[in-house]
C-alpha cells in the first residue's frame, strides 16, 4: 500500500510538472498515478487492522514496500519512454530506479533537458527514497527491534522529544525533511540556479541522492550551497530538531556531531594535501568532494589536481563511514563506528581483566548489550555483503579497484565510483550483469542491513514450510528403507 501510494503520488506530481515542459507524458503519468492512488486506497480499505503487530512482520513489510516502490519507479521510467522496452532498457530502468530509490548516485539514464517529467521522476524518487530512509532509520527500526542505537538517545529528548511515538515521529520527520529541501531549493535559486534546476538540486541534496540530471553545479556559489545542503542532510534529525526548537545550548557536546564535523575538516585538509590543491578553488573542490563522499550524496566532481594514491582511499573510506545516525545518508554511519570502537576497547580491557564488568556508554548512558551485539553483527553482515558484491562484480569483469569501489558505494548508497586517479567512472560502461549485481547491495544498505536479512529469512522459512524438502526427503528415505525390507524379505 505504501509503495502504491508513493509511486502514485510521484507519477501524479511528475505528470503535473511535465505541463511546464513538453507535456507529452502528462496524460500517461496522471492516469498511472490515479490508478495507483486508487489501488492504494482500495488496498487500505480491504486490509483489516492487525490485532498483533510482530517486529519481524513490520521489517518484512518495510522491505516489501521499498522493493515495491523501486519496481513502481522502474515501471514509470519504462512507461514514459525514458528507458526503452528492450532487455537492456528494462535493466536500465531497474538499475536506475534502484539507484535513485536508494539514493545511490550510480544511475545511467540521461533524460533530455526539456523532459521535465523524466528529470522530476528521477529527482522525486530520490527525495521519496531519502524520506523513506529517514522513516526506516528513525520511525521504524528503533521501534521494532533493530536500530536501537538511535532510539537509545532520541527517546530522552527533553521537553519536546522528536520521536515519542511513531505517528509523531513520521510527522516530525516529514516536516524536517521538507524544510531542509525547501531551504536548499531557495538557496540554490538565490545562488543562481534556474528554479526548476534548483528544485531538482534541492531534492538531490536533501535526500543525499546526488542525482540532478541537467542541473549542473558549475559555479562556486552553487557548490558552496551544495556543501552546506549536504552537511545539513548528513546531520542527525535530532540535531536539526533541537536547532529548530532553540535548544542548541549543549548540542556541541554530542560526540557524534564533533566527529562528523571533524571528519569534514580533516578530510578536506587531507584531500587538499593529497590532490596538489591550493587556493580558494582547491579548498572548495576538496570540501565539495569530501562532503559528497561523507554524506554519501555523491555529486560527481572532477579531481582538482593529481591525486596521490591515498586520495581515492580517503574518499572511499569516508563513503563507507557515512554521516550521522538518524540522517538520510547511508554508509555504516558514525555512531555505529563509535560503538564498534568502544566495543573494541572494552574487549581489550576484558582481555586484561577478564572478570571485570566493563560497560559501554552512549551519550552518557550505559548502552544496552543487545544494541552493542546488533551493531557488531551489522558490521559483520555489512562487510560480508560488501565482499560478496565485490566478488560477483569482479567475476562480472570489472577490475579490482573498480569492483571494490562499486561494492563500497553500493552498500553505502553513495557514488560515484572513481578510478585511482580520481576520475569518475561512468556506470553505463559496465555490463548489465554487473549493474544488476549491485542492486541487492544498494537495497540492503538503504535498509540498514537488518530488515533485508529478516525478509530473506522469512521468505526462506515460508518456502521451506511450503516445500518441506527435509520432511519429504525423510519420507522418501523411509519409503526406500521400507522397500529395501520388502526386497530382503
Amino acid at each position, binding site marked *: 500500500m505504501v509503495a502504491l501510494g508513493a509511486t502514485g503520488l510521484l507519477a501524479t506530481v511528475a505528470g503535473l510538472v511535465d505541463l511546464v515542459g513538453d507535456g507529452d507524458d502528462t496524460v500517461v503519468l496522471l492516469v498511472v498515478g490515479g490508478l495507483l492512488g486508487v489501488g492504494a486506497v482500495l488496498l487500505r480499505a480491504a486490509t483489516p487492522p492487525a490485532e498483533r503487530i*510482530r*517486529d*519481524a512482520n513490520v*521489517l518484512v513489510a518495510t522491505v516489501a514496500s521499498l522493493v515495491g516502490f523501486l519496481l513502481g519507479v522502474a515501471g514509470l521510467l519504462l512507461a514514459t519512454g525514458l528507458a526503452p522496452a528492450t532487455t537492456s532498457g528494462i535493466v536500465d530502468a531497474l538499475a536506475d530506479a534502484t539507484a535513485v530509490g536508494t539514493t545511490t548516485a550510480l544511475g545511467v539514464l540521461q533524460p533530455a533537458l526539456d523532459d521535465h517529467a523524466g528529470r522530476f521522476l528521477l529527482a522525486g524518487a530520490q527525495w521519496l527514497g531519502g524520506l523513506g530512509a529517514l522513516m526506516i532509520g528513525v520511525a521504524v527500526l528503533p521501534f521494532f*527491534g*533493530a536500530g536501537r542505537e538511535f532510539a537509545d538517545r532520541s527517546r530522552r529528548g527533553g521537553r519536546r522529544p522528536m520521536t515519542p511515538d511513531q505517528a509523531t515521529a513520521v510527522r516530525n520527520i516529514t516536516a524536517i525533511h521538507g524544510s531542509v529541501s525547501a531551504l536548499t531549493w531557495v538557496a540554490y535559486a538565490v545562488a543562481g540556479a534556474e528554479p526548476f534546476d534548483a528544485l531538482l538540486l534541492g531534492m538531490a541534496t536533501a535526500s543525499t541522492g546526488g542525482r540532478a540530471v541537467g542541473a549542473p553545479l558549475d559555479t562556486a556559489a552553487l557548490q558552496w550551497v551544495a556543501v552546506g545542503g549536504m552537511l545539513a542532510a548528513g546531520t542527525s534529525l535530532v540535531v536539526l530538531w533541537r536547532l529548530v526548537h532553540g535548544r542548541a545550548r549543549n548540542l556541541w557536546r554530542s560526540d557524534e556531531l564533533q566527529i562528523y564535523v571533524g571528519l569534514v575538516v580533516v578530510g578536506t585538509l587531507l584531500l587538499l594535501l*593529497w590532490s596538489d590543491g591550493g587556493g580558494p578553488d582547491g579548498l572548495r573542490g576538496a570540501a565539495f568532494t569530501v562532503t559528497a563522499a561523507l554524506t554519501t550524496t555523491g555529486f560527481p566532481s572532477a579531481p582538482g589536481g593529481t591525486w*596521490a*594514491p*591515498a586520495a*581515492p*582511499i*580517503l574518499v*572511499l*573510506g569516508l563513503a563507507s563511514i557515512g554521516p550521522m545516525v538518524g540522517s538520510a545518508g547511508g554508509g555504516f554511519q558514525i555512531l555505529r563506528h563509535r560503538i*564498534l*570502537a568502544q*566495543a*573494541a576497547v*572494552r*574487549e*581489550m580491557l*576484558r*582481555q*586484561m*581483566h*577478564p572478570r571485570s564488568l566493563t560497560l559501554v556508554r552512549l551519550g552518557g548512558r550505559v548502552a544496552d548489550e543487545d544494541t552493542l*551485539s*546488533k551493531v*557488531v*553483527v551489522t*558490521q*559483520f*553482515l555489512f*562487510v560480508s555483503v560488501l*565482499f560478496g558484491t*565485490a*566478488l560477483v562484480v*569482479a*567475476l*562480472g*569483469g*570489472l*577490475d*579490482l*579497484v573498480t*569492483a*571494490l569501489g562499486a561494492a563500497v558505494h553500493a552498500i553505502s548508497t553513495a557514488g560515484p565510483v572513481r578510478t*585511482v586517479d580520481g576520475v569518475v567512472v561512468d556506470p553505463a560502461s559496465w555490463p548489465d550483469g554487473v549493474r544488476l549485481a549491485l542492486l541487492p547491495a544498494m537495497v540492503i544498505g538503504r535498509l540498514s542491513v*537488518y530488515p533485508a*536479512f*529478516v525478509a530473506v*529469512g*522469512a521468505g526462506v522459512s515460508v518456502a521451506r514450510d511450503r516445500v518441506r524438502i527435509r520432511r519429504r526427503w525423510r519420507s522418501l528415505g523411509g519409503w526406500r528403507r521400507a522397500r529395501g525390507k520388502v526386497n530382503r524379505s
Partner: protein
Amino acid sequence: MERWRAVRRRIPAIPLPDRGVAGRGVWAGTTRHVSGLALLFVAGGMLVSGLVELGAGDEGPAVLLAACITAAVALVLWWPTRPGALDHTAVFTAVGTTWLVASVIGALPYLLAGTFAVDGRPWAVVLADALFESVSGYTASGSTVFGAHNPIEAQGTGVLLYRQLTQWAGGMGIVVLVVMVLPALRSSGLGLIDAEAPGMGIDRLAPRIKTTAAWFWLVYLTLTAMVAAGLLVAGMGPFDAVAHAMSAAATGGFSPRDASVGHWDSATIEGVLLVAMLLGGASFALHSAALRERRFGYWRDREFRAYVVVLGISATLITVLLVDDGMGIGRAVRSAAFNVVALGTSTGFGNATGTGSPGDFTAWASGPQMVLLLLLVFGGCTGSTSGGVKVMRLRVGMAHAYRTLRGLRKPRALLPVRLGPTILPESIVERVAGFMVVYGLLVVTGTVVVAALGADLVTAFSGVISALGNMGPALGEAGPTASYADAVPTPARVVLSLLMLIGRLEIFPMLLMLVAPYRRVRTASGHAIGAVRERLDGSG
C-alpha cells in the same frame, strides 16, 4: 645439571623496583626471563646457521657473531631473573615483549652480513629491510624484501638457513618452546601459550603444560620430517627439501629460491607441498590424535571440513575462470589449487616461473584475484600454525549473526549460539566479536596509513590483510614474483612489520603490551595529580 641448578639457586635475583604484585611491569622478572630464554633459542638457531656457513665456506662469520651477541643479550636478560606468577596483563606483556625482542635481535645476522646493504642504500632502509625480513620470518609470514635487486640465491648458506629457521621457530611459537623448558611457570605457562597460539585458545594435549608444549613440538617436528622426506623423494635437493619442509610446516612461505616453488616447475613437488600446507593449516590437536592414538578424526571435525570445502570450492571456481580465460585445463588446475592452498593456509609459496606466467596470480583476471583476496582473510584452522581470521571465528561470526537475525523474528526466545551440536558460551562469542571488530579497524587504519605512505589501493589493502594474516604475498605490486622492497615504500614496510607482529599474536597481546604501560602511567599520573590536589587543598 643438578650442580648447574644449585649454582643458579645461589645467585640472588636482581631486586626489582617495587611495583606491587610480583610479575607485573613491562620489564618485570618473568618477562625478562621468558624473553632471555627465547633469545637463547634464537641464538641457538643462529649458531647452527653460523656453523653451516663456516662449513660451507661461503662468507665471514657474521651469523656466528650475531649468535654471540644474541646469546650475551639473552644471558643478561635471563640469568639474573626468576619466573614468577603472572597476571593477565603480565602474560600479554611477556609474550608481546618476547616476540618484539626476538624479531628485533633476529635482524642482527642480516645486518652483520650486510645482506641488504646493496646499491648504496641508506642505513635506515637497510635497517628497515633487515627488520622486515626478521619479523616476516618469526611471524611465519613469508613476505620478503629480496628481489631482482638483491637475489635470494646470491646469499650465503648460513643466512638462508637462518632465514628458514626463523620461520620454523616462529611457526610453532618461540614461547611454546620456552614453556617446554620452564617448569617454574606452572599454570602461567598455559596463559603464555594461549596468548601466543593462533585461534581461540589451545587444546590441552596432556595434563601438564610442559607435556602439552612438548607434544606440540613433537607433532611439528614429525610433520616437518615427513614433508622433507616427501620433497626429497619428489626430486628436491636435501637443503631445499629441509628448507621448504620448515616453511610448509610453519605455513610460512620463505624459499631459498628466487622463484620460490616455481623454480622446479614440478607438479610432483607442488603436490607434496600442497598436502603439507593443508596439514600445516589444520589443527595440531587433530595431528596429535592421529599420531598418539592412531585416531584419524579429520573429516569428523567440522572446522576441518569447512576449511577443506572452502578451499576446494575456491580452487574449482578459479580453475573454471582460468580455463575460461584461455589457460589449459591441466595448468589451470595446478595453478589454482596451489595458489588457493598457499594463500588459504597463509603459507604464501608461489609457483610462478616468472612475471606473467600461469602461476603469477597478479596477472589473472580480477575475478580470481578477488577470490584470493577473500582467502587472504580466511586463514586456516584454530590450533594450527596458519594466520588469518580462522575458519572457527568465521563460523562463530556467522552463527552469531544467524542467532541475532532469528532473535528479531522471535524476540522472546532465548537463542544460544550453536556450532553444530555445541552451544557456545557468550564469553567466546563476545571474544570473537571483539576480535572481528579490532581486526576490521586495523585493516581500515592500516590501509589508510600504508596508502598515505605511498602504496596504491590494491597493494595497500591486500598488503595490510596479508600482513595481519601472516600470509606473505599480496595482490597488486606485492604479488608472488615481486619484492616488498619494490612494492611499498620503506616507512610502509615498517608499518607492515608491526602489523605482522600484531597479526601473529592474534592482535590482542601486542596491542595490550602497548596499552598496558600507558594505562599504568595514566593511573600513576592520576594518583600523583590527586595527591598534589589534596596537598594544595590542605594548604589552602
